[in-house]
């Protein structure tokens, strides 16, 4: 269906004694279904904020970003949990943080849950081909 090039770069010149500076990149072959970059107002009930439905075991590459706002303009410091459906938390994003990871090999989907109020997030996912 298409090829994604996903790149992670980590850089730090002064926290540790050794400079951290590396980049890793992978061309990912994808197939249907994909979800382009989408915004969602994440609330405090994860089951109401399912961003990727349950799978039949496929691997999906999932990107999630906390926009640091409640609505695209009003700042917030509330965090957002990234969860498997069924309320299994596996990560917590603070304002402007993001994650990119494969989800799959099981039937669970992915949902988001704010610590309080509404937090606007961006997400996208792509199915491994």
């Amino acid at each position, binding site marked *: 269906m298409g090829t*994604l090039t996903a790149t992670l770069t980590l850089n730090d010149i002064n*926290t540790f004694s050794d400079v951290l500076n590396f980049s890793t990149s*992978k061309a990912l072959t*994808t197939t249907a279904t994909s979800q382009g970059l989408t915004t969602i107002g994440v609330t405090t009930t994860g089951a109401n904020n399912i961003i990727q439905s349950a799978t039949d075991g496929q691997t999906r590459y999932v990107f999630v970003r906390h926009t640091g706002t409640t609505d695209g303009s009003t700042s917030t410091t509330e965090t957002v949990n990234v969860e498997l459906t069924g309320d299994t938390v596996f990560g917590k994003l603070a304002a402007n*943080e993001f994650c990119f*990871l494969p989800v799959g090999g099981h039937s669970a989907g992915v949902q988001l849950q704010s610590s309080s109020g509404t937090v606007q997030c961006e997400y996208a996912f792509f199915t491994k081909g």
Partner: protein
Amino acid sequence: MATTTATVSINSSDLTDDTLSINVSKQCYKAGTTLGLDQTTGLNRLYVTATTQFDPFPVVKGATNAAENGKVYIANLSTTDTEYITVGIGDAVIGRLYAGDWMWMPWSPKAQHVNDIEITPSVATGMHVEFMAIHNFANIYPDSADS
């Protein structure tokens, strides 16, 4: 100020009719602050030859770090397309990293065995796995058993 900056780029010219170009960058801060994370496991590379599940990062002794804000990088360096590692947290499987795949995610460990990150190779014929955590967790290394 000392900070680690993480950048993720996701690009595609043929996925849809519209070119995809996501490019995000963020400093890695301690939870609720603008202070950079100041501890790291360093970049580790392992050659694993068993399908036994293992914990790539030190196991939390019991002190809670649930409010902290670590970051984790894991990559499968295999070049055989069918080989993968399953990454989980606690008893939950997150997903599979196939050959060359990597992941970047937040991690807030709680207590030992509750949400340890776990890796399970799909084959015992040997593959390289790379991983690193950047964090500010307290007391995560096990006590020495030496007398």
